[in-house]
């Protein structure tokens, strides 16, 4: 049974109501091939993969595995076919331990569990991707990056012949992703077929053999990676050239806006810095460096042990998120599914929830005004949807992210904290978001940007703070910006 292709998907079609997510897509992967799948937000990448993994049923089309026609009608059947998938949005049980999540499926099969062995094995899998997480930790307490690692470990712990990764590196640093890439290449040698979805196009050139570009539910190209360039791929993705990925801004930096002094908490120690009006301050660091935690403490989402905050020179205190928002702060959280979006509310209601005053009078909604506000922001961020009345979780991952950004663009915040704002967002929309960051700064707001994408930090920020293990390791002014300098500060002993 030596078929040429491990997977053949022919003429796949899928609609959701009036939206044709896939319009007759054909997609094949050879054994031992790393096949990259790219396209704009909402192009249909995740939908195609969810059909393969049994999460969605196709409307029409044909799937062959190892040359044999198969019907995949449930996730269980996909697993039986040797398919393993890391979904774009996490599917972890937050109340279980890391080890329990990793071995979820095998746990159900035996009556007794050897816990110490289970934990040991879990640790091994996690370490093989280059990380160290206590397997006994509660999964719900992990940051997004660690959750991503657990998801990857979960699928790698199984013996799969087809591995699907839907944006596994969206929150990882280049150097952190490197270890996983080595592992993928090893699996490829063993003959595993890998489908790799990412908006970080440079990754394609590190590991990919073939790249398929999707646009509006149709294939626009299937090419060997060796014959492509980033610009060519972008053109196939968005149908035009992208001239300027990082829009320029003339920085006009004013007086001090907000200052933190001696912030200490569970995951960080003695963090002090200030941001001025019109300034974009970047926070660089590895996974677990405490950047997110410091910002959550500033925003009143977590308690801190000590530390003072000064706003325009006056000491202030934000003991709760309510006070923080009232005081002019905004926090775009790292985890859109758990911290950003409210599933029972549609896109319109999700966007306006941060600033209800703007669309109400005496606490009663002005529907026309509300629709206008939501409509305007959704257009501005190019959220791909039929209408703002749609369910937020019917949006593609990148478009959900845009809604989270939109809801904070709806406030008149003076200090905007962005934690991985471009996570899962396509190249075109990233440029939009960079434009928004520039606008915010130009209007005299202070912006704090956390990102795992080094190029993004280098291009967008006026100043960089490098953190590692909860400590500020150093500060870089614009003239000293380089990846090398950042990495040096991270590894430097203090």
């Amino acid at each position, binding site marked *: 049974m030596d078929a040429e292709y491990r997977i053949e998907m022919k003429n796949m079609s899928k609609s959701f109501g009036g939206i044709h997510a896939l319009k007759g897509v054909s997609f094949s992967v050879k054994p031992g091939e790393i096949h990259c799948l790219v396209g704009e937000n909402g192009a249909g990448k995740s939908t195609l993969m969810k059909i393969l993994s049994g999460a969605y049923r196709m409307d029409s089309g044909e799937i062959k595995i190892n040359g044999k026609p198969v019907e995949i009608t449930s996730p269980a059947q996909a697993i039986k076919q040797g398919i393993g998938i890391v979904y774009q949005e996490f599917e972890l049980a937050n109340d279980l331990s890391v080890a329990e999540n990793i071995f979820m499926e095998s746990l159900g099969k035996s009556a007794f569990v050897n816990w110490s062995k289970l934990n040991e094995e879990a640790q091994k899998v996690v370490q093989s991707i280059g990380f160290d997480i206590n397997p006994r930790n509660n999964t719900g307490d992990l940051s997004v990056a660690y959750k991503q690692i657990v998801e990857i470990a979960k699928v790698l712990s199984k013996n799969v012949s087809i591995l699907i990764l839907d944006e596994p590196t969206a929150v990882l640093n280049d150097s952190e992703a490197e270890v996983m890439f080595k592992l993928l290449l090893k699996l490829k040698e063993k003959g595993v077929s890998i489908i790799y979805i990412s908006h970080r196009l440079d990754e394609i050139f590190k590991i990919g053999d073939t790249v398929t570009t999707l646009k509006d539910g149709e294939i626009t190209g299937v090419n060997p990676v060796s014959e492509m360039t980033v610009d060519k791929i972008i053109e196939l993705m968005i149908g035009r050239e992208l001239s300027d990925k990082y829009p320029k801004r003339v920085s006009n930096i004013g007086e001090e806006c907000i200052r933190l002094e001696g912030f200490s908490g569970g995951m960080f120690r003695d963090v002090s810095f200030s941001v001025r009006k019109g300034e974009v301050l970047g926070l660089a660091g590895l996974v677990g460096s405490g950047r997110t935690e410091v910002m959550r403490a500033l925003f009143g989402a977590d308690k801190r042990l000590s530390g003072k905050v000064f706003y325009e020179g006056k000491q202030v205190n934000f003991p709760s998120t309510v006070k923080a928002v009232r005081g002019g702060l905004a926090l775009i959280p790292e985890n859109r599914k758990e911290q950003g979006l*409210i599933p029972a509310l549609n896109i319109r209601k999700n966007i306006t929830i941060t600033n209800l005053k703007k669309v109400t009078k005496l606490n009663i909604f002005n529907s026309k005004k509300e629709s206008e506000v939501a409509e305007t922001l959704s257009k501005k961020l190019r959220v791909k949807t039929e209408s703002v009345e749609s369910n937020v979780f*019917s949006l593609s991952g990148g478009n959900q992210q845009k809604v989270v950004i939109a*809801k904070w663009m709806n406030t008149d915040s003076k200090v905007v904290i962005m934690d991985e704002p471009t996570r899962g967002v396509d190249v075109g929309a990233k440029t939009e978001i960079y434009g928004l960051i520039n606008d915010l700064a130009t209007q005299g707001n202070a912006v704090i940007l956390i990102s795992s994408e080094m190029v993004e930090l280098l291009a967008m920020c006026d100043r960089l703070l490098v953190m590692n293990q909860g400590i500020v390791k150093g500060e870089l002014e614009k003239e000293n910006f380089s990846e090398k300098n950042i990495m040096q500060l991270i590894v430097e002993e203090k």
Partner: protein
Amino acid sequence: MDRIKKIDWGYLLRNYLVVFVAIVLFIVSSQLSDVFLSTQNIFNLLRQLAPPTLIAIGMLFVIMTGGIDLSVGSVVAMASVFTAHLLMTHNLVVTIVLVLLCTAVFGAVIGYLVAYRKLAAFVVSLAGMTIASGIAFIVSRGMPQRIRNDALRSFAVDSVLGVPILVCFALAFVLIFALIHRYTTWGRIVQAIGSNETAAKLSGINTNLYTVSVYVLSSVLAGIAGIMIASRVNIGSPLAGQLMELDAIAAVVIGGASLAGGNGKVLNTLMGVWVLGMIGNIMNLMNVPSYPQDVLKGVIIILAILLQMSKKGKDINSSSMA
């Protein structure tokens, strides 16, 4: 130019299934018994259902936040006993104000423990249930107490334009709360809290305060229901309101709300109350003895919920995991 919109039956069925169930039940009942359709029976039934309607509305908003309030039945007893007791020394208006104040404080305490101390709503309200019931027994010394107050009495027996006041009252509450749910920030926020409290909090919403407000509402509505019952039977009794919390929960769930929170509709909850009421009523009319009635009622509740689930299942398949 007139363009008739096509009716989306799938949407209607998914969102208002209980309305169809109520209509079917109504038609079936009218076939089973001639008495059912008589004005007397219908008004009697509706009058009887006025207190449960109020309690169910309160329960709906509690459930919408992802909580539950098991204390409402006992709060009814407490309110009815307080009413009888206070009326001996105070006039009706003062009595009503005092009773509602007490129930509001009671709800605020439960809400505080749930929202700020993060205790499980189930446990807190269960404790609240025994406390309220205990208070009712202490104040009444375990004895039902006669009420002699014409104003209160007329509230239960009088009609406006042929419709009993109690019924008008209940329907007005339904309408007002349906509007509040739909058009006010309070309604939106309560729903947001049940759907994703973390995200709501990170959006700068004082989620704890809103959670407390929902328990206050539930308690006050139970208080009003208690006064209504007292006016109907002219007695303040520590045994009033027994098991009404369970009927309210059943009505809310039959109305399609999920116990996990985040959704629910006031109109559907009213239908849930009516469905339960009609089932009881028709069995009474057909002389089904009380214990078999309980069994049948339970079975019908389960069937109604299964029907809801099967309709929703289709939705979930295509929208989860996105």
